[in-house]
Structure formats: C-alpha cells, structure tokens
C-alpha cells in the first residue's frame, strides 16, 4: 500500500494520490534528484503479465509530442510496476465537467484539434499506438490552456497479437466490448450494477480512439456523460443546440458512429474537418453557394448574351443583305420594264442600306444606259468611283469589273475610245475570265488604232472561248482600223449572219453600215438598214435611223442636181425626225437636220430647231453661228431692197462672244469659220459696215 511520504526506488517521494482507474493508481510525486514534481502511476496488478513491460516502456519513453506527457522512468519493483511521467499542472477536463463548467464551442474545437494532433502522431508511429482510454479524466488542461493526453501506460501497440486495452464505459468504442450481455446477474437485496466483459483479444485500431474522443466531445458539448455501452447506443447530438453549431455536432456524431466503418477512418480526417470546420457550416456553404451561383450563372448569362448578340448581329447582316439584294433585283426588273423613276428610287434606297456596295451603282449605270443617256452614265460612274473605294469595301473584282465595263461601254458609245480603252483595261485586269470584256477591249483598242494590242486582246478572248460571231466582229474591227474595209465589211456581215445574240447582230449590222459609210457606199448603208430594220431594237433603232439619215444627207451633199438633193434631203429629214421625235437627237443630229431642212429650203423648220437649241444649249457658239448662217441664207434669197442683216449681225456677235475661248486656242468650229467668211463677204459688199 503506497502512502504519502513513501519513497519509491529511492527517487520518487509520494506527495499525493491524484486518482485511480482501471489501469492503475496515479500519484503526484517529487523527484528528489531533479527536484521537480512528476506523476507516478502504479499499474494495476490485473494488467501485469498481460503486457511486455519492457517493450511497452520503451515505446512510451520514446513518445515526443507537444500534447503528450514525457515518460521518464519505468520501474519493475517487487510490489508492482510503475511509470513515471511529466507532472502537468492544471486540471483534467473531468474536473471542469464536475465543477459544472460550460464549455464554449471555440474551446471544444481548440482542444479537439490538439488531441487529434496527438492521435495523428500516435497512430502514425510504427507500429501505431492506440491510446484506448481517451476520456475527460485523461485529458489535462495545462495552465496555458493547452491539452495533454495522459495515461499511456495501458495503451497498446496495434498489432495482431496485441491484447491490452484500457476501457472506460461510455467512452470505450462498442467494438471494445466482447458482447452486450452483462457478465453478472442481479442479486437479491443489492442494487444491480451490470458488469461487462471487454474484448481483450481483438486488435483495436485508431477508429476506437476516434470514438472515444468523440464521446468525450459529446460530454463536453451536451454536459451529459455518454450513456454506457453496450446496452445503450450513443444517441446523436441534437442539431439545434444553442451554443454549438451543426458543423461541430455533425463531426462529433460521425466520430461516435456505432459502426466503425461509418466513422472517420483516421485522426487526420477528423483534424482536417475540425481545421476546416467553417467549410462545413451551412451558413458558410450557403454563402459559397450564392457566390458560385453569382459567379457562374451571371457569366453564363453574359456568355449567352454575347452569343445572342453575335447571332443577332449576323442575322441583321443577313437580313440587311437580303433586303439589299431584294431591292437590287426589284430595281433591275423595273429597269427591264422601263420604270426608270421607281428603279432609280429603289437603287437609291439600296445605296442607303449599303453605301459602299457597287451593285446599285452598276444598276444606275444600266438605268442610264437603258435611257441612252451615256453622258449621265459617265458622269454618275466617274463620280461614284471618285467618292467610293469599292475595292476596299469588299466588293468582288468581278463586280467592279462589270462596273468598269459598263462605264467603258458608255465612253465607247460616246466615241471617246481612249477612255473606253482605259475602263475596258481595268475590267479585264479585274476579271480575266470574261471573253466579252476582252472582245470589247480589243474593239476599243482598234478604234484607237492600237492594232497590235487589239489582236493580243482578241487572242485572249478567243482563248477564253469567245464565240465565232464575236471573233468575226472583233477581227472586222481590226481590219477596219487597218483600213481593210472590204475585209472588215465581210467580217461584219459574217458576224451579223452567224450570231445567235441579237445585240451582237445589231452591232455587226451597224458596224457594217459604218464601214460602207467609210467606203462612201451610202446606198449599201441604206440598203442594209432597210433590209434588216426588224433586227434593230432599243438604242440600235436610233443609231440605225441616224446612220440612214446621214447616208441620205451625204447623198444630198453629193447630188448632181437640185432635184436629187431635195429628194435625198427629204429622206434624211424623215429619218432625223424619227430620231428627234423618239427623244434621242444629239446636238449634231439637230445640226444635220437643220442642214437637211436648208437643202429643201424649209427655213422655217430649220429656224425652229435652232431656236429650240438656243434654249437647250444657251452657251453654244455653234448654235448662234448656225442661226447666223441660216439668216444670211434667208436674206440672200430676198431681193436686195428687202434684205436686212441686222439679225445676222446679232447672231454673229453672240456667237463671236461665246467663242472667245476657242479663238485663243484656234479651235473654232467649221460653223464659226463659215459664219466669219460670210461676214467678210457681207462687209466687202457693204451689206454690213465696219
């Protein structure tokens, strides 16, 4: 029997009995040599013989952890086995509990983490050490508020042959009990306290320590000692305790699960959850969920919005393209149906939609071409090219080439062949697959007498598969340019007769007539046009009438007698009148018509035409010159007493005034010079004074 004052092994003077348990009796002792307090524990005799004392002592002495006491000594004396450890000043959790202390959640978590750290250390040793008797009485709180897990001398190493464990009912894990039936029976007259047999043969593992720690925490949280196993299972802690949160309660409930497989499997897992307990809090999780929703849902909506907007933008472009193309198609049809006003309006609307697309501008050129207003074609086309960079705006080369080709055609019709060559050249540079562009380029080159270049372009057209009639037409043009009029006439005739393209046929006949005209064969001009009058359509009718009128006028010029002249002039008037009535009379056509009227002595109609031209060409010196010439002719037919050259003088002065700039450059027209010659004669004859 150990009593206060006893000196054990000559070193440890017993000061006080601290406690006693299943494992043994604990004393506070004084180390006489080190002069410090230690804890001496005498192992219960029941354990002696069940453990390899020396081996266990070595294990315990080697333990070094912040939250474990340091073992100093292991004594195998005659009266028992003793272990000597650090004395931890402070109080056990058991004492706190018994004093009615209410633990805060922060304290519980703080201590639980420290004990778990100690368990991680113990369980990580090779072989692992299972404390097996974790309970409030074995957890000291030192003066600094840190825990110290004590009472190791009955711990065991977790090996299959290990068979020692301490147990405390209520804190021991269910698997530490051999069975659930008490080993004693009630005795009459005595209060019944059931006793259970613990399983000493089963190798416990770290999950038992986790259970015991959980049960200890249960006690701290609820203030109630865990019900004693095995007859009563530890009930889960209610989740609505006011001072403890569900996160901690869930951890403890999991630690104390009856089935070891459902518990935490390692102390490290427990520590991780305790260390990250905030993440288990439902308010925190709710907040994180809200964050997740905000930072996922809104960006997803934004991405969706971008996709929607992009799709909308593409759709808008598609709709715009459709509306634009519809307008172009509609306007093109209006041009075909000669509804030029609405066609122009529709093209302008298309330009409003896409100002840099070339199609409506090309349409406008076609619109003016259809009205034979080639001056307007040139004016509009050149302005459009000056104001827009069609290439940079993404129009295709073929579209731009077509635009240049139409413009080249206008210059060609206006007989400005150098400009026609310029635009045809642009067209073939941009679209090298169109044989007709090369053909007309070759024709324009031949009109400019660039015969070699014309042949080269014609060859390219042939290489691109130009049809035979077109080849004949272009070759005839080249022959014409060379002055080989007979070959040219033959080529044009062949082209006209073999072409299946009515437009090309008309061109061939007109060029044939031009060739006859150049050859001075006016009868053939008239004959060709008369025989093929049904061939000509649209503007070709106008051109054919003009050619016929000019042929008759030239026949009138060359007529042998006055009667023939009047007959030819009258025919010329007939054709010119058709042209004028159709609204296609040019300035030169009207002058020719005046000449024809003069041949038939119809001064009145000649005068009427020139008067009308004064309105249309108010600054044209030639108009006044022709008026002056006509007036002189008119007066010359009167008797000398009735003549008056006042009007002649008036027209003369006006024409001279308007022709000032041509005088400087010496480019006055034939009409002006004729008028001036008449003036000289009138002055010489004193009809007009100096």
């Amino acid at each position, binding site marked *: 029997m150990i009593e206060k004052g006893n000196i054990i092994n000559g070193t440890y003077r017993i000061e006080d009995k601290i406690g006693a348990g299943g494992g043994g009796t604990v004393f506070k002792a004084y180390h006489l040599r080190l002069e410090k307090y230690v804890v001496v524990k005498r192992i219960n005799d029941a354990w002696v013989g069940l453990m390899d004392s020396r081996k266990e002592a070595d294990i315990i002495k080697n333990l070094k952890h912040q939250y474990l006491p340091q073992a100093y000594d292991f004594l195998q004396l005659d009266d028992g086995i003793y272990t000597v450890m650090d004395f931890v000043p402070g109080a056990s959790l058991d004492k706190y509990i018994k004093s009615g202390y209410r633990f805060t959640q922060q304290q519980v978590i703080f201590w639980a983490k420290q004990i778990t750290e100690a368990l991680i250390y113990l369980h990580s040793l090779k072989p692992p050490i299972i404390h097996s008797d974790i309970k409030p009485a074995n957890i000291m709180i030192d003066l600094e508020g840190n825990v110290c897990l004590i009472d190791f001398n009955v711990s065991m190493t977790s090996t299959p042959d290990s068979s020692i464990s301490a147990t405390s009912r209520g804190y021991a894990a269910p698997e530490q009990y051999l069975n659930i039936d008490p080993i004693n029976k009630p005795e009459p007259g005595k209060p019944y306290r059931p006793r259970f047999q613990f399983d000493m043969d089963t190798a416990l593992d770290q999950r038992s320590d986790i259970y015991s720690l959980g049960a200890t925490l249960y006690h701290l949280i609820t203030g109630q000692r865990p019900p004693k196993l095995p007859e009563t299972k530890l009930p889960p802690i209610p989740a609505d305790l006011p001072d403890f949160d569900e996160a901690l309660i869930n951890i403890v409930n999991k630690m104390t699960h009856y089935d070891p497989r459902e518990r935490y499997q390692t102390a490290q897992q427990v520590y991780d959850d305790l260390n990250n307990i*905030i993440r288990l809090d439902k308010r925190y999780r709710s907040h994180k969920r*809200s964050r997740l929703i*905000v930072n996922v849902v809104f960006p997803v*909506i934004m991405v969706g*919005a971008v996709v929607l*907007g992009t799709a*909308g933008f593409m759709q808008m472009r598609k*709709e715009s393209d459709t509306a634009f193309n519809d307008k172009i198609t509609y306007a093109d049809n209006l041009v075909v149906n000669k509804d030029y006003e609405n066609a122009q309006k529709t093209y302008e609307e298309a330009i409003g939609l896409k100002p840099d697309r070339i199609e409506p501008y090309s349409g406008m050129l076609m619109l003016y071409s259809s009205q034979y207003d080639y001056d307007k074609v040139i004016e509009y086309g050149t302005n459009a090219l000056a104001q827009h960079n069609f290439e940079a705006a993404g129009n295709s080369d073929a579209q731009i080439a077509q635009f240049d080709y139409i413009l080249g055609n206008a210059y060609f019709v206006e007989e400005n062949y150098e400009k026609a060559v310029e635009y045809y050249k642009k067209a073939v540079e941009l679209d090298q697959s169109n044989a007709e562009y090369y053909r007309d380029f070759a024709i324009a080159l031949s009109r400019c007498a660039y015969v070699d270049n014309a042949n080269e372009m014609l060859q390219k057209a042939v290489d691109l598969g130009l049809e035979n009639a077109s080849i004949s037409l272009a070759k005839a043009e080249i022959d014409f340019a060379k002055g080989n009029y007979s070959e040219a006439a033959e080529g044009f005739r062949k082209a006209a007769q073999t072409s299946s393209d009515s437009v090309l046929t008309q061109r061939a006949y007109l060029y044939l007539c031009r060739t006859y005209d150049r050859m001075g064969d006016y009868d053939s001009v008239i004959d060709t046009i008369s025989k093929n009058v049904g061939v000509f359509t649209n503007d070709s009718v106008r051109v054919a009438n003009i050619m016929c009128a000019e042929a008759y006028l030239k026949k009138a010029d060359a007529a042998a007698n006055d009667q023939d002249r009047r007959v030819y002039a009258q025919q010329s008037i007939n054709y010119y009148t058709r042209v004028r009535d159709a609204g296609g009379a040019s300035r030169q056509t009207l002058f020719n018509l005046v000449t024809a009227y003069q041949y038939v002595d119809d001064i009145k109609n000649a005068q009427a035409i020139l008067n009308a031209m004064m309105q249309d060409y108010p600054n044209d010196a030639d108009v006044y010159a022709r008026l002056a010439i006509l007036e002189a002719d008119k007066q010359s037919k009167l008797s000398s007493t009735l003549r008056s050259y006042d009007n002649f003088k008036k027209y003369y002065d006006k024409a001279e005034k308007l022709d000032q700039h041509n005088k400087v450059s010496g480019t006055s027209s034939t009409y002006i010079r004729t008028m001036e010659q008449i003036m000289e004669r009138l002055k010489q004859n004193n009809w007009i004074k100096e």
Partner: protein
Amino acid sequence: MTVGAIMFYGGIGLFAAALAGMIIANVILSSKWKKLRQLMHDRYGD
C-alpha cells in the same frame, strides 16, 4: 424592328443587365461575407 435587331440589342441589353447584376450581387455578397467571416471567427475561432 427585325428579328436580328431584336436579338442583337436584346443580347447587348442582357449582357449589360447580367454584368450589372453580377457586380451588384458581388458587392452585396462581399458585404455579407464580412459579417459572416466575423461570425465564423466568433463561433469557431481562428
């Protein structure tokens, strides 16, 4: 207004609304987080 225009301007509007919503929601959540962080500290310690 064409379908494309509705989609395009709708997309812009939706984007702007979502962006504004996300900013506002984050401001609110940040404010709540400050309070929650203090509460977590009070309840669980460091």
